[in-house]
């Protein structure tokens, strides 16, 4: 295979169909940017779920020394050992409760560090500022109210939280956005594929003289098809490159410079999450158009 010959054929082909090539690049770029964005959104959701989200339904936060001064529910001071034993025993007797775990303030600190890492808020915390808690798994997650009414007014209890209630609205929103992004991506992908098929058809038609001669003098079908497939693959790769740029820009401007400034409670995805998606985006951008072109050629190019 003579690289120079193939390369010149490809560049001629890409320039001949400049408008079509442009359309392919744009549609591939948009669909892959949406694809990458939806992957990142999933990462974001799993980052936010934290340690307990999938494991428990209800958390009972106990008063610590700091709360005793500031929180109206903790006016009777920090929780005592007796109170803790009593609450635990009572929880285990309740029929709706499946299992009870105790999280010490040391453990709470550790889990918090894992979730929030080096955020400014996390670095200012010390273990004794963290609340002890009971993490409860219910047999039926809907029975949150039973636990809440039994323990919320109990001395030593700061708050009873339905774990799902706090984050579910946000997650529902994110999941909805994710599904919407995937739908738009699917449509853009179909548009991209149709454009590629059409590009190949036009390209095969405008080069039928060359391909006819190539066939007659005994060029292998691989050799005849290669310029077409490479044309599609290169257009796709350029599109994927733009998609990568869009993702990086999105992370930098949208997340780092805007969302992170406004909302400092949420731990946003880091650069490693973004960068790890880029090779996948590039690979799909290269392979998908190549495969589409290959199948289009079987229809439009006799070899």
């Amino acid at each position, binding site marked *: 295979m003579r690289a120079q010959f193939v390369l010149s054929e490809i560049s001629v082909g890409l320039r001949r169909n400049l408008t079509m090539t442009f359309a392919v690049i744009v549609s591939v770029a948009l669909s892959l940017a949406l694809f990458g964005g939806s992957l990142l959104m999933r990462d974001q959701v799993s980052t936010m779920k934290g340690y307990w989200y999938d494991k428990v339904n209800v958390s009972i936060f106990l008063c610590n020394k700091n709360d005793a001064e500031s929180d109206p529910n903790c006016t009777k001071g920090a929780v005592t050992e007796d109170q803790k034993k009593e609450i635990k025993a009572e929880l285990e007797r309740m029929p709706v409760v499946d299992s009870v775990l105790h999280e010490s303030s040391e453990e709470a600190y550790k889990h918090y560090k894992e979730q929030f890492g080096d955020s400014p808020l996390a670095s200012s915390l010390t273990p004794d500022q963290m609340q002890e808690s009971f993490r409860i798994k219910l047999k039926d997650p809907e029975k949150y109210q039973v636990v809440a009414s039994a323990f919320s007014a109990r001395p030593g209890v700061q708050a009873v939280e339905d774990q799902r209630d706090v984050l579910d609205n946000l997650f529902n929103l994110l999941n909805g956005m994710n599904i919407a992004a995937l739908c738009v991506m699917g449509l853009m992908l179909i548009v991209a594929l149709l454009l590629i098929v059409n590009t190949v058809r036009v390209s095969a038609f405008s080069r039928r003289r060359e391909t006819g001669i190539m066939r007659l*003098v005994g060029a292998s079908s691989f050799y*005849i098809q290669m310029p077409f497939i490479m044309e599609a693959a290169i257009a796709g790769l350029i599109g994927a490159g733009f998609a990568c740029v869009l993702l990086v820009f999105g992370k930098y401007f949208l997340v780092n410079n805007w969302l992170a400034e406004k909302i400092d409670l949420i731990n946003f995805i880091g650069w490693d999450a973004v960068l790890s998606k880029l090779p996948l985006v590039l690979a799909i951008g290269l392979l998908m158009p190549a495969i589409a072109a290959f199948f289009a050629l079987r229809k439009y190019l006799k070899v």
Partner: protein
Amino acid sequence: MRLPCSPLQVDRGAPVIRFDNVSKSYPKQTRPALRDVSLEVEKGEFVFLVGSSGSGKSTFLRLLLREERASHGSVHVLGKDLARLSNWKVPQMRRQLGTVFQDFRLLPNKTVGENVAFALEVIGKPRGQIRKTVPEVLDLVGLGGKDDRMPGELSGGEQQRVAIARAFVNRPMLLIADEPTGNLDPQTSVGIMKLLDRINRTGTTVVMATHDQQIVDQMRKRVIELEKGRLVRDQSRGVYGYQH
């Protein structure tokens, strides 16, 4: 009706072309394009293929190039059964054939030299060899020194010479010509026929489909006539036909 074997035919056992009871019908046509055609063409022969339009000449040539497969019977070209030749081996087979058409089929945006070189480039021949062979073969067809001209600047006869150079540059065993003089005036045609005759004398078998009565009558080569898909005449040192 054929003459005894010439010395050229003795040294090669297998014929260059062998048709055994070949029929070809196309899906949407009731009448088959070829019906029960059997013939052999030996190495070094020059064969005219004549017959009116629709007689099956084109189908005959397409079968040789394996653009089509026979519906019945077997086609052997250069000793290979084309029915058993797998698709990916077809390009290898075609490299041993040369083809020339009425409409020349040159690339208008490439020079004469590039047109001939194209045939070598696309089968992956090394550049050094291409640079050496292209001027040689252009000399052979009488276009020496015209490497850098564009096909549009040449006369029809010269363009056909370029096409012949491209067909011959691989030194094929078999040259297939589909009405190579169809677009040319009689005088130019004679020049092309002289060239094909010269190529034939290097040992290349030539099969030429034609409507040109004058040429066939002058050359006095083997004539195969098809009529409505049947082989109606196979005559050595033949003429174009009686009724034309």
